């Protein structure tokens, strides 16, 4: 029997070609309750993380912005107001369910005209070279099968001087926090997922996938290897989340 390549799906090893489908199942399953779970799991702090991301984006009126794995459209909604009628925001997600929830939510909030949803794979972005002033991926890179390929694809579509922002779970900076956080994610989170979204497995995957994701320095190195310059990161909430920034030369 031929041994195929495998990759991680949480703590399990799965064939590379299966990962995308497995991740898709998780997000089809959680799409409808995604927002309420985010508020509950993070105690609303995810709003602050996202606000800081917007601040660091340097977004201005008239710009063209890509929000990858934009899910239910939190960042997109804020960008839409900033870039105004002359600007454009593309809300990209590989998952149809998340994208539809996102589009409907944006419409409900009266955000339209300069926002377009596109179903796309971060590894093979369907946009021309040198297009975007800013590319963001918030809580998405973790789920991408080939992160190096995705980072190079983002670099290609950015304008020279454009910036990439990666908001993602990362490694807590103190042992004590790490301990508390582990208890929280592996004991409490699946129970909350079961109670609120009736889906313990998806939230167990969430906790596991966070532990498998590259830490702060590793991700920074990956961005540099992909060709980004002036790479830096900011830890938030003790490193539970980190915001990485890189510039296209």
């Amino acid at each position: 029997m031929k041994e195929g390549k495998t990759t991680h799906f949480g703590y399990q090893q799965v064939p590379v070609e299966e990962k995308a489908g497995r991740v898709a199942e998780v997000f089809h399953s959680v799409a409808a309750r995604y927002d309420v779970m985010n508020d509950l799991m993070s105690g609303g702090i995810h709003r602050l993380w996202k606000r800081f991301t917007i601040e660091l984006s340097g977004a201005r009126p008239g710009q063209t912005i890509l929000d990858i794995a934009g899910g239910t459209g939190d960042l997109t909604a804020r960008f839409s107001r900033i870039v105004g009628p002359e600007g454009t925001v593309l809300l990209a997600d590989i998952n149809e369910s998340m994208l539809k929830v996102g589009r409907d939510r944006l419409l409900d909030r009266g955000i339209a005209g300069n926002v377009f949803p596109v179903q796309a794979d971060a590894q093979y972005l369907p946009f021309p070279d040198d297009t975007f002033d800013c590319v963001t991926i918030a809580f998405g890179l973790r789920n991408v099968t080939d992160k190096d390929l995705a980072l190079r694809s983002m670099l290609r579509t950015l304008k020279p001087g454009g910036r990439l922002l990666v908001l993602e779970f990362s490694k807590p900076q103190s042992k004590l926090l790490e301990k508390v956080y582990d208890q929280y994610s592996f004991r409490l989170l699946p129970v909350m997922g079961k109670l609120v979204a009736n889906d313990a497995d998806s939230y167990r995957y969430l906790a596991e996938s966070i532990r498998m994701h590259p830490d702060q320095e590793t991700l920074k190195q990956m961005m540099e290897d992909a060709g980004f310059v002036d790479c830096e990161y900011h830890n938030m909430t003790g490193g539970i989340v980190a915001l990485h920034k890189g510039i296209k030369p």
Partner: protein
Amino acid sequence: MDKKLLSLLVCPVSKAPLEYREEAQELVCKASGLAYPVRDGIPVMLESEARQLTAEEKLEK
């Protein structure tokens, strides 16, 4: 399809610009021979979801 959006899309395989076929609700790339569906107004730019163009379609102007 919004003109602005169309101008920002390329085929993820060939990176060539796309032609919008309104009646079929598809975005066509002659270079890669693929047609991407537009579902519910959302362009689905995934190779796995694209349709292979027929030989006749590839020759059409």
